[in-house]
């Protein structure tokens, strides 16, 4: 801890808002950047709100938000400043393009190790790629204790540890974790709205950007060469719902049919059954079916 209150770092991932379709470029190597709509990862919003609540409760606490993201998504960081984060920092360099979760964690860990911090907060996972790796990977690199999937963080008076609420199947647990530590949030309070003053401050704020060498890494540590996995390609998904069970020989155009075949064809929903006569034996049959398929276990 550096003199004053606890230093909190919130790791932010700008993500694509999946309500908007993405366009896969032919060949599938990437997503057409013009089809991406950047928003704050909803899980990170829980982390940011939790940080703001800790700062409300603990005098002298300071919040810095940090993201590894290209300048396309700088607005997302400005949004974090608008709701009350003290500082924002971006890590980017064109050489970071194509980083997987491991390379991302490496870059963020390098940037973090240059600063003093007590608590690192981030979302449990990123909503667009559905990866939940960066947080714990970074904790491993920096050898920090971690709690993944917390729902609430309670500061403790002496600021040497925190209390966390976490849900595990069947139970709600309360955990104690020494600081410094990394916590990923599964759920939490809704992120507050920015004030007008906050918006003004955010619009004027300077968001520094650190490159590969500035954080103390080499080219080989980031991008595809710093990654442990390689993206082969993106593909359109298989339609899975019943509404997608249209006959392939129907009125589809050749192009639409080809697209469906390339997407892996139609996957029929298993066990789609409707019973029309509501007499006792047939209702019992449905109940037995549910038990047999282990949809509900007793």
């Amino acid at each position, binding site marked *: 801890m550096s003199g004053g209150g606890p230093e909190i770092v919130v790791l932010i991932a700008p993500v694509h808002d*999946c309500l908007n*379709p*993405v366009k*896969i470029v032919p060949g599938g190597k990437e*997503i057409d950047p013009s089809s991406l709509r950047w928003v704050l990862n909803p899980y990170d919003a829980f982390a940011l709100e939790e940080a703001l609540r800790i700062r409300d409760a603990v005098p002298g606490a300071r919040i810095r938000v940090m993201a590894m993201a290209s300048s396309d998504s700088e607005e997302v960081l400005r949004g974090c400043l608008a709701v009350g984060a003290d500082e924002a920092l971006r890590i980017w360099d064109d050489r970071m393009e194509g980083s997987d979760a*491991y390379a991302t*964690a490496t870059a963020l860990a390098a940037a973090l190790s240059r600063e003093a911090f007590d608590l690192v907060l981030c979302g449990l996972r990123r909503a667009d*790629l*559905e*990866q*939940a*790796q*960066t*947080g714990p990977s970074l904790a*491993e690199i920096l050898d920090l*204790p*971690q*709690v*993944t*999937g917390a729902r609430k963080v309670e500061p403790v008076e002496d600021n040497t540890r925190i209390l966390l609420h976490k849900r595990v*199947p*069947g*139970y*709600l*647990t*309360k*955990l*104690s*974790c*020494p600081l410094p530590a990394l916590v990923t949030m599964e*759920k939490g309070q809704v992120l507050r709205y920015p004030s007008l003053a906050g918006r003004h401050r955010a619009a004027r704020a300077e968001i520094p950007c650190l490159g590969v060498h500035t954080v103390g890494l080499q080219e080989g540590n980031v991008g*595809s060469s710093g990654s442990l*996995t*390689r993206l*082969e*390609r*993106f*593909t*359109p*998904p298989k339609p899975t*719902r019943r509404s997608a069970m249209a006959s392939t020989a129907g009125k589809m155009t050749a192009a639409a049919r080809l697209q469906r075949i390339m997407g892996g064809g139609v996957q029929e*929903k*298993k066990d*789609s*059954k*409707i*019973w*029309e*006569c*509501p007499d006792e034996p*047939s*209702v*019992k049959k*449905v*109940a037995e*079916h*549910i*038990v047999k398929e282990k*949809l509900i276990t*007793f």
Partner: protein
Amino acid sequence: MKDIWAYVEMADEKVLRPSQEALSEAARQGRQLRARTTALVLGHEIPKEALEAVGRYGPDRVLVLDDERLSEYGTEPYAACIETLLHEHKPDALLMGSSVVSRDLAPRLSVRLKSSLVTEATFLNPQGGKWIVTRSAYRPHASMIVAPRDEGLQIITLASKVMDAEEIGPAEEVSVEAVGGPQELRSGHVRMEERIREIPSQLDITDAEVIVAGGKGMQNEEGFALLDELAEVVGGTVGATRMAVDMKWRSRESMVGVTGKVVTPEVYIACGISGAIQHVMGMRSSQTILAINTDPNAPIFRISTLGIVGDVRDVLPVMIGSFRETKAKAEAEGGRA
């Protein structure tokens, strides 16, 4: 590929569903590639029955690490033990189901061992000595196919309920081997202060695994009492449509839909709900949807896996009775065992 591992999580001598999927997928890959499959179980005082349960999912051997420091899950000791075993045995893959534990553990193992990790896998395609993995991304608009960059161990966590869990039957030739962990084991930093058992009926509906929801077809507040009864038997939570909330049959907390809460339970039982789009948008990602409605043309049937055309007030009592019987039977058997 010679050796495929599956990490097994258990509770009360039962293999948890995500681990059943990991074990089954390991066995399937093993058969296809003529590789050995290994189940890895960590814990303390693991009963023999539990290991037999693991054997039913078809592994060739079960490795058991029994240590008193592993009686409760902790990131640090568990990661250290698995790391040691992976170093020693050098398997080609470690499969894990989608769970609170794998989410906590897999990334740390991946960094420690510099092994590739792919999460939320929906399909594993063995090719040239490694697995090319399909996983969802930008759902529902795309998925992505990912390969490991280097040779060596691959860690893969499976998406929930995508791959089938199949019991192959009592395994006679499964060999159980006790193995040791690292000599020194750092105890975890995180300490459990309190653990409170959750009561399903009092859960927030966004946390519920089983939701029993009612709409206009429930007719009145008394109708919802039937839903409470059903929820109690199946360990579920009661939800409601906007209509039911507006009629004050249920509080706003339990409203499912665009103006209420968006839920994705394992099972959604829609009772007397026609399936207006505003409601459907809040529940259509549920794993299994059972609809009960008088109108065979109700839109709810278009998205449901199971459907009963009939009046909820006739159907529900029969269904509750049937579930009660099953539950009583299960409890009697559990008592004997």
